[in-house]
């Protein structure tokens, strides 16, 4: 049995993402998928799932092997809340359901990855605070959060993970670079599991700011 590397993408579709940002995100996802498909390691193990969050939480792409993924067009409403806390709760449930555990006779999955992209801050602050320990306990190998644009609040995200990347602008170029970095991270991870115990992230491209 080959172990799978499940990757959860959690994408903000609140009103402020409307217009150029969401177009750029769609293009970025397309590039991410294209790049993973050209990597023989990623093809072997990487599976993707996409969950969007605004006032509603939607699993727009259920967990699917890279070669079989058909990307949905991600759309966002004109206005709405940013229910990041609730979205993360859903993802924790998904992880509990989907990640195959090893048994004495069968090999289970690798520790999964979580990628969060938001341009604001969670409006469900209580739910968000409550879900943080659950995310930390869910057994992710790495959680990468991207704070996009001037209104994003990286300090909220640093409560969740030490890997927070900040994009100054929300145009196609910045998102493109971010997704390229995600692709490198996932690709590298899909081939380097086994050589070292800690998952090392590749350095982000210089145009992106890492919040320390």
């Amino acid at each position: 049995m080959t172990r799978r590397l499940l990757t959860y993408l959690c994408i903000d579709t609140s009103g402020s993402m409307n217009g150029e940002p969401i177009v750029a995100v769609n293009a970025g996802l397309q590039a991410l998928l294209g790049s993973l498909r050209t990597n023989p390691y990623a093809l072997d193990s990487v599976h993707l799932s996409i969950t969007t969050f605004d006032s509603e939480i939607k699993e727009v792409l259920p967990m699917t092997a890279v070669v079989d993924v058909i990307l949905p067009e991600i759309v966002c409403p004109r206005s709405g809340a940013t229910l990041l806390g609730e979205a993360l709760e859903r993802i924790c449930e998904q992880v509990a359901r989907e990640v195959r555990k090893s048994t004495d006779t069968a090999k289970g999955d690798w520790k999964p990855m979580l990628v969060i992209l938001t341009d604001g801050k969670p409006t469900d602050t209580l739910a968000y605070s409550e879900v943080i320990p659950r995310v930390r306990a869910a057994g992710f190998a790495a959680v990468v959060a991207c704070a996009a644009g001037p209104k994003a609040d990286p300090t909220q995200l640093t409560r969740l993970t030490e890997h927070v990347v900040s994009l100054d602008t929300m145009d196609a170029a910045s998102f493109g670079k971010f997704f390229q970095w995600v692709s490198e991270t996932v690709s590298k991870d899909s081939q380097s599991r086994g050589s070292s115990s800690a998952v090392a992230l590749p350095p982000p491209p210089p145009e992106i700011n890492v919040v320390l």
Partner: protein
Amino acid sequence: MAAVVTLTASDGSTVRFIDEVKARGGVKDVMFSPDETYVVAFYRGPADAASRERLLEITGRYRERIFGQAGGEYLKNLYCWPTAVVEYAGRLGVVVPFYRACFFFEHGSRNDDRLLGIRGREKVGKWFASPGHRARFLDPRELGDWMRHLRVCVMLARAVRRMHMAGLSHSDLGYNNCLIDPTTGQACLIDLDGLVVPGRHPPAVIGTPDFIAPEVIRSAHLDEGDPDRKLPSRTTDLHALAVLVYMYLLYRHPLRGDRIHDPDDAQKDEELTMGAGALFVEHPDDRSNRIRAEDLRPGESPWKDTRRLPYTITGPYLSALFERSFVHGLHEPALRPTADEWETALVKTVDLLQPCANPACEQKWYPFDNSTLPRCPFCGTPHRGKLPVLNLYSSHEKGRFLSDKHRVMVYDGQSLFRWHQNRFIFPNEKLSGDDTRRVGYFVAHQGDWYLVNERLSGMRDVSAGLDIPIGARVLLEEGARILLSPELGGRLLMVQMAGG
């Protein structure tokens, strides 16, 4: 359009590159020269004196040690060796020849490459060593056949052997660092700027997963100064080479079985699978790491079914080396076969090949299984007609011939070469011009097989006591004894007949 930068390299040559990152490796950014005959790969970290010295050695003295000797021209095809060092904007870079065109996908993936979009990309070995990728993703025109895979392995063993002869070890051998072309049987080692010279330059990385030797993984948690810590070296290269050969001939990993070492932690389980608990999936006595055939994914059968395609289908020479590598030498580095032994066994295995009679057989060639009624192990098609088997003996003193444990199978279009004629001649990079031309060939006529003498002046049918002049032919029949050369080391063929 990005600017073209012009620099003077360490060897005094003028180096030009377009200042635009075309590819990103683990530690380097790659730029192309305007005419695309070479690339300049810059390290992302700042330049330091130790790295500069190491790169200057690799592009200077070590390069000379490999290419400045007999066979140097031939070896240029086996390595993408850095030619010079440059410095630009505080960063060190190496100048490396562009990969040859055969190492980029011409057709790519199935469905006119719409499936994956890999046309024009590098042929990283991983694509060809995975049965699922071969069966589901790659265009069948990219796959080559078993003979060409065997040739790929010969090239790799030769490249590693030559480096080891020069006192260098690769230290990160694996399918990421070799490009292969199964459609022509070529292979080329790349990323050679990480080379290790024992006692001089310590290895920078512990290697690529799947290829790191068990003793390196087992001791990776220790300090570098610890005497028990094992770092990449010549003997770990030999583990990686054995794994590569196994994977390119059988399309499965020799240690990735279904044994579970740690059900609670996948990472720990992986470390044990490849490290302290590493066990050959086809170990003759310990069956606990067998691959369970019932769990295979689409496209993985029959390759991952070790009962249908055991390692022994690769023939006796390679089987013996697989046993030494994965049964005896897995945890005993000193017992591992050398690259020289691999090269010899692979070259001898080429002589065991038989074309499969089934035109639809994907592998097209298979090694003789030493039976009287051979059949293709890949598609099950039996051999048709008579099959002469030539056993090679060579003279050690006048009139005394000893077995070389080397067989040559006969088929239409098969040839004899200088290295069949004399034990002291071996086909490698040092063989030149005249010695690479064939000296005789085989032909079937009305159900019988003949050997035609083209260039052997001392050929003689010993059984009949007759000379066989150039241009004449001799019938191959059970028990026939044919002398190819009367010189010391000259070969005597002893013919056996198999097949119906």
